[in-house]
């Protein structure tokens, strides 16, 4: 299990490779990227901040639950903080499992739980103002 909060660019390919395993028939990778708009408002950049030690701890708990619920073989989660521009990768989650359903379900579980409970926040900077994101997607 590899869990990191980083302030530089995320290497998605390295995340994917680190989740590979000989017993894995399926690897699923989720990449969360900075969209060019939120409900039609043009996004200039995002600013992410995290309560880093707690974020790593909560992510670890989520990944352990995912591992046992879905029988995942390997899990890698890298989340970036700091200033991100449109197209940048904010988070990459790579999981492997013997079969595809477990890999899809496990990967989706991790990003869903991350968005509920991991202490990371983004402020959206628009062409016409800025706002901390508060509504759950």
């Amino acid at each position: 299990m590899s869990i990191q909060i980083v302030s530089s660019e995320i290497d998605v390919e390295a995340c994917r490779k680190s989740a590979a395993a000989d017993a894995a028939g399926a690897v699923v990778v989720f990449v969360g990227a900075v969209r060019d708009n939120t409900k039609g408002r043009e996004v200039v950049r995002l600013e992410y901040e995290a309560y880093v030690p707690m974020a790593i701890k909560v992510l670890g708990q989520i990944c352990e639950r995912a591992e046992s619920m879905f029988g995942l073989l390997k899990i890698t989660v890298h989340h970036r903080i700091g200033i991100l521009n449109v197209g940048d990768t904010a988070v990459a989650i790579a999981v492997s499992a013997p079969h595809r359903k477990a890999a899809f379900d496990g990967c989706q579980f991790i990003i869903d739980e991350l968005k509920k409970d991991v202490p990371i926040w983004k402020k959206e900077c628009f062409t016409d103002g800025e706002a901390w994101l508060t509504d759950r997607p």
Partner: protein
Amino acid sequence: MHIQLFCFGQVKEAIGANLVDFECDEGDSVKALKMKLLNVYGGLKEVPDFRFAVNQEYVGEDYELSENDEVAIIPPVSGG
């Protein structure tokens, strides 16, 4: 009794700092701390549904605080 208070996002902007030393009473619950904070920092009323974590674990409002606890006020998260 002395606690460390970590503030993030909207909470940080409402309180004006990301780390404050805060005095509360021996045996105060998180609920009691919350009331005191709302009195001192009126801006917190604008933050929707914040939670508390103590020593990097979410806790309920009944949680009883101890000297030197690391307390964090967690506004709605938006990672990913």
